[in-house]
């Protein structure tokens, strides 16, 4: 479980996050939704340690990530997988080498065991025949799947996805959503997904956090969304704008 307590973040004199308190449970897709510029990506980057919040704590199963010594922060980071918006695959490595990268850096497997693990991860995301291809040779949807395979290669405990559907067609988007949902359930990972795609919310979102102007505006289950939106103009405007 990941727990955020009073997280604040600002850049120069502009505050971006205001007293964020939230809990993200394992085994279910936790979605953070909100308009662009609302603070979703900053929050996600604070959670994975790319930004340091000014105050508050981010607890990974009781370990305060913000105040841990650097060596222990790196230990926690090795339990984290992240799917970036632009996939962030290493251009100079093949698909297979991208998935192998965390295994080679931190795993204690033999080359044969690594090979098996790579093939397992790639087949789990539905990419059996792309091992030797370079990121530039595969489609956007395939890149996302390689990104997911790399993120789960080290038997990740926490998975973060920043806009996993951006730039994908509706069918591929749906496949990525299903894949994230299944992997979260199967490996009991604490998955946090940043999205502004309401279809994703209704398809796989179980715990929803709506961020508006750097504040948590609403939290709840997706089944409660429709009942709540009538009393929450900002949330209603966001959902209505999605034409869903």
């Amino acid at each position, binding site marked *: 479980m990941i727990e955020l307590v009073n997280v604040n973040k600002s850049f120069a004199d502009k505050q971006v996050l205001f007293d964020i308190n939230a809990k993200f449970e394992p085994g279910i897709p936790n979605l953070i939704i909100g308009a662009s510029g609302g603070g979703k990506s900053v929050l996600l980057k604070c959670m994975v340690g790319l930004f340091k919040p000014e105050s508050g704590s981010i607890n990974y199963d009781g370990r305060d990530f913000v105040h841990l010594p650097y060596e222990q922060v790196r230990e*926690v980071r090795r339990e984290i997988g*992240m799917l*970036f918006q632009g996939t962030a695959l290493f251009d100079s490595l093949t698909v297979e080498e991208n998935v192998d990268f965390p295994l080679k850096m931190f795993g204690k497997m033999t080359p044969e065991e690594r090979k098996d693990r790579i093939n397992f991860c790639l087949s789990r995301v539905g990419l059996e025949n792309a091992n030797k291809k370079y990121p530039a040779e595969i489609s956007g949807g395939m890149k996302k799947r390689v990104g997911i395979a790399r993120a789960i290669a080290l038997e990740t405990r926490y998975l973060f996805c920043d806009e996993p559907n951006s730039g994908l067609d509706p069918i591929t988007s749906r496949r990525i959503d299903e894949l994230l949902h299944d992997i979260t359930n199967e490996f009991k990972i604490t998955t946090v997904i940043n999205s502004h795609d309401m279809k994703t919310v209704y398809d796989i979102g179980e715990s929803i956090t709506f961020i508006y102007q750097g504040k948590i505006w609403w939290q709840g289950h997706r089944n409660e969304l429709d009942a709540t939106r009538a009393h929450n103009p900002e949330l209603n405007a966001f959902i209505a704008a999605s034409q869903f």
Partner: protein
Amino acid sequence: MNKLFFELGRYILFVRSMFFKPERFKVFFERTIHEMNNIGVGSIGIVTIISVFVGAVTTLQTAYQLVSPLIPMKVIGTIVSDSSLLEFAPTITCLVLAGKVGANIASEVGNMRVTEQIDALEVMGINSSGFLGLPKIIAGVIMIPCLIIVANFLMISGGILAARLTDLMSPNEFIQGARETFKMFTVTVSMTKSLVFAFIITSMSTYEGYFTEGGALEVGEAGTRAVTRSCVLILFADFIIAKLML
């Protein structure tokens, strides 16, 4: 002035952050060998062309200026070999390498920054500055002095070739002039310069790439900045080394 101190402080902190124990020595070793190939083997062609021509032109221009019949022609060999060892081979070669290697490193690292590949390394718990920068610095510090040794040899060879082709003097006369006043210390100065310049080129270019912000345009600007700043620092270091060692 504030920006200068900010950049200087950030550069020093960045260089310090690179010197960490590698996560996996095998991966680090592979990356270093890969960079040695890129920096060293990949630059042999341009270093060969530049060195031969600089040596040849220096010989012809020295001969043009030595008009007195009292000065023996073999002095040209002395002047060309000493100036090649002391100045032309390390400085001109490294200025060219700042353009070739420096721009390449800055655009590679800058592209990794804007496509979030560096963020991906950080999220995995990898010291990204050390992982990307240290193999480049080690490879540069090993391979650039090797290139300078080749450049020294080729500049003198270029001088001999030019003297022979223009019937200025015989190769023996040139070599005699070069050997008469040869001091091993000039090689020490040449190697000291090449080590310092190698560090400047690789660290400054990695630094510029690492702190790129924006997109493709900024990656190009980082490449340009890496080259210009490396060149200025090389010339500055050249002066300091000359003052301290000679």
